[in-house]
């Protein structure tokens, strides 16, 4: 007699993890009859696609020098009186060259998310919080990570945050991150 509620041993999603490893194969068989070739399974090979890339920060370089010295640098157009939190050396409104200025290190969360997945490069760091930070007297926002709150429910738009810096600079925009302020 069948049990009323048989224990479920496997669901449709029960699967072994797919791996990107495989076996080295040097030759495959070919049928005598060439007419059969159109029904042949595709041959799929794997090969590496890696490069050491030389990337210059160019005119943005002072921003990274600033981070390694515990300073957050933006730029300002003196003519338009417009301050960019993420630096750009040319004003988008008037086209003039902008000046480097130091930004405040305290701001507010303009918006946020918590990434539970991510690009392969950052997958091992998930979950992490991304925030766009707004500063008083600054016209644009700044993308950074927020450390401290555990869950997205613990983050509020408008909450105060302050900048912290890595002691050992990696010369990456992640040399600065934010934590909840007072």
């Amino acid at each position, binding site marked *: 007699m069948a049990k009323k509620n048989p224990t479920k041993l496997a669901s449709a999603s029960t699967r072994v993890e797919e791996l990107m490893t495989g076996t080295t194969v040097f030759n495959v068989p070919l049928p005598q009859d060439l007419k059969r070739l159109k029904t042949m399974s*595709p041959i799929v090979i794997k090969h590496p696609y890696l490069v050491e890339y030389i990337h210059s920060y160019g005119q943005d370089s002072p921003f990274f020098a600033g981070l390694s010295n515990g300073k957050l640098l933006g730029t300002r157009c003196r003519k338009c009186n417009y301050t960019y939190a993420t630096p750009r050396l040319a004003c988008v409104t008037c086209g003039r060259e902008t000046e480097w200025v130091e930004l405040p290190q305290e701001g507010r969360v*303009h*918006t946020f*998310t918590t990434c*539970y997945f991510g690009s392969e490069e950052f997958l091992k760091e998930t979950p992490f919080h*991304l925030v*766009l930070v707004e500063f008083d007297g600054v*016209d644009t926002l700044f993308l950074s990570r927020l450390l401290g709150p555990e869950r997205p429910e613990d983050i509020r*738009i408008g909450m105060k945050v302050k900048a912290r810096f890595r002691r050992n600079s990696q010369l990456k925009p*992640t040399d600065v991150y934010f934590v909840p302020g007072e």
Partner: protein
Amino acid sequence: MRPVYMVSGGVSKFEKARPDATFQKMVKESFDYAMNDVPRLKRHMIDGSVVSYFSDHFTRQLMAGIMATDYLGLCPKPNKRVEGGGATGGLCFQAAWEAVASGRMNVCAAYGFETMSHVPTWKGNEFIALASDVNFDYPVGGFYSGYYAMMVNRHMHEFGTTVEQLAMVSVKNHMNAYFNPYAQKRRKLTIADVRDSEMVAYPLTLLDICVMSDGAATCLLADEETAFRLTDRPVRITGVGTGTDMMRMSDRPHGEVILAPNEKKSDYRKLKYPGVHSFRAGRSAGLQAYRMAGITDPIREIDFVELHDAYTSSEIQTYEDLALCKYGGGGKFVEEGHPFMPQIDYGLKLKKRGTIPVNPSGGLIACGHPVGATGLMQAVFAFWQIQGSIRKHYGDGELQLAKANRGLIHSHAGTGTYVTVSILERGW
């Protein structure tokens, strides 16, 4: 400029992976389908072509465009590649329109493809995230779902949009796709299914986000005289618009709303625009296309929309950009039922169903998003809708709208960096 018509289209069914075919063969499948649908068009009558694919990383084949072109036997005629992130297909469609409108060509073929299965999903997300500033944005944790999640959190804060309203978009598009054999994901879902699926980037779940695909699509465009020689049901392209915005969404201004013809300044006394909650490029593209097509009241003058729903949230944001409702009204717009199909049962209580069906095909969320093909796929599905030939091409007439004289297609890149809008109308 002279009038331009679409005379045929074809789609190579979008799949998670097509190991049986290279990109050339997928393009050929869509091209052959389009050619077979207008037997009077012979290949020698095609004056040139435009080809689109987004990422050289996915393809790992530079100049793949010419390889698709030579496979189709269209050498030595003119051809060029068009690329602009997620809007690649929409830009390709408009490039073909330009070739015919200018008089340079009488018949121009536009085809596009993407082969995203060649890397695992999270490597694919990395390739896509490289379409964000690699000095300042990508290294912080580059992930497009994260970027869109930040935008929708601000949208929710600004306007009170809810996650259930986002989920309704997913239910709608997956259900529409249930009747579209070209779709990659054909599923009957509930709001609870969407909310209970895996969280990807708060508040967006797996079912709020489109998937990666292999696939190709082709559109054939012609001048008026040729179009009517080829088919008795050509579809006229009466408006095109293209908008842009700054790559880094953190750089977007907080200024005044660009007003649509059916809006006034007093509608938006306090709103800072576009900020990160709205797409200025989408609004700009829409208004250009409306002006060219003579549209002043889009919701009354357009019968259906195929828009770039890479995320459920961006579909809601786009209702507003296209002035189908006021800024801030996108959540209510879907909740009330306006973008649902009138004839389909979604298992939802909807007050006003089918005012303007959005993504009758199932959109990117359900059909898939092989980037370089997507904008062209939308054009093909809109073309069949206007021709009234959905039953012929889908083998099922469930998705055919009773009134489909004028449709809008919308293709969208980055965090709203390139957006194209084109208006297609019954031409006969």
